[in-house]
């Protein structure tokens, strides 16, 4: 783990908190007075990974900035389920402008704060994979290149869920979406492995790039906190599951995210100035089938009989990640 592990065997570093741990080593989410930046009453689906990831990240950012935070939000599920007139779930100053401009709006906010000498107030831009890797990509890249003082958080659920599960450039190979149906000779998405924005962000040599999942809260919170200690353009790519779009039971949201990491399909790491400085190792390596099977979007890979060639290709992708990022400790297997 990138963060300081807590030697506590009953629950290790993995539970949210523990009555026996000193408060400072518990997660922000364990705090009775956490900010609940994204409050109850939002209209996200049962078990929504994005709602969870957003509260995790923004609460952590609030904690790191003593609540001096402003957020710009791209159009998407998060925006729609959090702020339908006449109610908003946000407890922080928050603005939604357009689908493709969250990064630029945040740049504007940061510029305004700089002019006004409010260095204490920090700015976050957030959006889904559509608003980040597709339509908002230009603004995102511009924000990176100028090294604007903004933390951009992408909540990646690998498709356009708000509009009814259409394929985005973050949709993985073979996944079924409404625009990559599971029919024909090669069902599901046939566009390679998806656009990997964390690597593209690193190519901008911005001070901080990190990935995280909703399955490892401490790691996610550590990365948000670290990001808030740095000035300049920062990027956090959070893997969030979508029970509706992926077709898994709502209670499996965290488990599926955990499997994405444990298979190696979603590498969890952090990079400083374009160089990977730490990776979150795989604890119990599992084959990709374990990740694919619980999700209906991959059901066609197993019916009527397993499509070994396709599954093999996905496994190969996972193995490549494991080699590339050193996700498995030598000798641990």
């Amino acid at each position: 783990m990138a963060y300081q592990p807590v030697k506590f065997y009953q629950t290790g570093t993995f539970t949210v908190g523990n009555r026996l741990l000193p408060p400072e080593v518990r997660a922000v989410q364990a705090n009775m007075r956490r900010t609940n930046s994204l409050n109850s009453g939002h209209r996200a689906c049962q078990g929504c990974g994005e709602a969870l990831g957003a509260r995790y990240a923004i609460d952590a950012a609030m904690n790191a900035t003593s609540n001096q935070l402003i957020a710009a939000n791209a159009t998407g599920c998060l925006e729609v389920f959090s702020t339908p007139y006449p109610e908003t779930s946000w407890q922080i100053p928050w603005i939604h402008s357009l689908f493709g401009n969250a990064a630029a709006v945040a740049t504007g906010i940061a510029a305004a704060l700089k002019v006004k000498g409010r260095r204490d107030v920090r700015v976050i831009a957030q959006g889904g994979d559509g608003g980040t890797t597709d339509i908002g990509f230009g603004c995102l890249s511009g924000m990176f290149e100028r090294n604007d003082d903004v933390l951009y958080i992408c909540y990646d659920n690998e498709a356009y869920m708000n509009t009814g599960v259409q394929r985005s450039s973050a949709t993985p190979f073979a996944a079924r979406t409404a625009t990559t149906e599971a029919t024909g000779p090669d069902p599901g998405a046939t566009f390679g492995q998806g656009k990997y924005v964390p690597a593209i962000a690193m190519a901008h040599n911005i001070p901080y790039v990190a990935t995280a999942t909703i399955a490892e809260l401490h790691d996610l919170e550590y990365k948000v906190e670290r990001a808030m200690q740095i000035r300049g353009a920062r990027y956090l790519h959070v893997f969030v599951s979508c029970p509706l779009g992926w077709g898994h039971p709502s209670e499996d949201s965290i488990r599926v995210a955990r499997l994405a990491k444990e298979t190696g399909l979603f590498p969890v790491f952090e990079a400083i100035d374009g160089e990977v400085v730490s990776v979150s190792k795989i604890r119990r390596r599992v084959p990709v089938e374990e990740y694919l099977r619980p999700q209906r979007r991959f059901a066609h890979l197993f019916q009527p009989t397993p499509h070994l060639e396709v599954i093999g290709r996905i496994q190969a992708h996972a193995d490549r990640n494991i080699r590339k990022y050193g996700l498995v400790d030598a000798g641990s297997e």
Partner: protein
Amino acid sequence: MRKPFAITLDPGSSLANHTGTWRTSRPVYLDRLPPCNAGCPAGENIQGWLAHAEAGDYEAAWRVLTLDNPLPAVMGRVCYHPCETACNRAQLDEAVGINSVERFLGDEAIRRGWRFDAITERSGKRVLVVGAGPSGLSAAFHLARAGHEVEIHEAGPLAGGMMRFGIPKYRLPRDVLDAEVARILALGVTLRLNTKIDRLLDAMKAGHFDAVFLAVGAHIGKRTTIPAGASARILDAVSFLRSMEGEDRPMLGRRVVVYGGGNTALDVARTAKRLGATESIIVYRRTREKMPAHDSELEEALQEGVLVKWLSTIRHAGDSSITVQKMVLDEKGFPQPTEEYETLEADSLVLALGQDVDLSLLEGVPGLEIIDGVVKVAPNMMTGYPGIFAGGDMVPSERTVTVGVGHGKKAARNIDAWLRGTTRVDTPKHEAATFDKLNPWYYSDAPKTMRPTLDLLRRQSTFEEVVGGLDETNALFEARRCLSCGNCFECDNCYGVCPDNAVIKLGPGKRFAFNYDYCKGCGLCVAECPCGAIKMVPEEI
């Protein structure tokens, strides 16, 4: 500020939207029965006292432990810990070393001189306990705690029963036993040694006892007819082991053969080694798998140089040798004789074929039912004679210290009820906290800590304790390996993983509550609860 209509909204206003109405099933907190508790013959609340140990509060842990068992230091040494066999953690890495933590707590209590709370209110009833073994001491303890006046009549010269006269020193140092017995007596329990009761009813009348608990144990070694030469030296295990407590040690010679496959047989063989025997051989008619003795003890014995003749029965015992007949297991697993014989050099033969109960004191007591030499008791441990209860080795059961202690507690509680003219109803047990109810991801890897063991040379020559104890740090480590199966330990997972902030944290020690106004019933809290303390129940629609 004058906010533009509709496009600009006040913070947190979504609280007006009660998403709880979406729910089709709701999460509820529950407590499940952990396998360790379920598996403990002494009925200890193991997870309960481990929880205090995890927090480093050893005295609190000891006090919770001793609510059920007054002999933790003893049990921490001689118990065969079925709790560890049942422990869910065994399916992760290794079972939690419950027994070693129990011993640590017991020793800590002796070291620090912790005492039981003084008895406050008295019932004015008198109870006679016959026998100062595990059951008797346990019963006396619990009865005293309940406010009754207790008198123990022990036939022997010292308290402890089999703990003293059956279990060798190297497994249970006597000072430990003495300390824990003394602590029980300190509650005001009267102990009369060398007091053998011949006619129970008379004794009751004479002492004005309102109830009796019988726990005389089984001290008569079983004999079997083996053709033997006139000068063949044959002893029985019980008396041999008992004689170890006396002044002059028994003479066995250099070559000792022990006949039997129970723990007692091992105790004898290991003791013989320590007495200087060059050969200590166990003859057993079945295989190692079938052996009733505990494997850990067999391991230690083998390490110490004890030899075992498997699938063998003794046909003849001569002056300086015995004849052994080889057996084979039939398809049903029963040993059948072969025509193969073997002769072993032997200076003495010790029979460890089990023990019988001395029931002489029960003569003239009406209504008792004796089956295969043991006294039949009702589920509440009462014999056929009202007011006379029995437990331990003299009733049908597995004959271990732990079972005895358990009987003592159970009997005491029922005697208490009986004395108060009520009948005790056990609270229904919670559903079992099986491994499949857990989410083990959240427990980090931590293999069991091994207790130090004495080096072989000294084990073969002295009676020093073989197995050492844990020090404070690894006792804490071991305690913290507990998964708290089935019972919330306030890890905050449910509070953290709820996408709708629908879990209310009530504060230290107060656990959590659900806010059903917002809970959408996604079930994440159930899936991510490490210890299986939440379940989903369907909503009535």
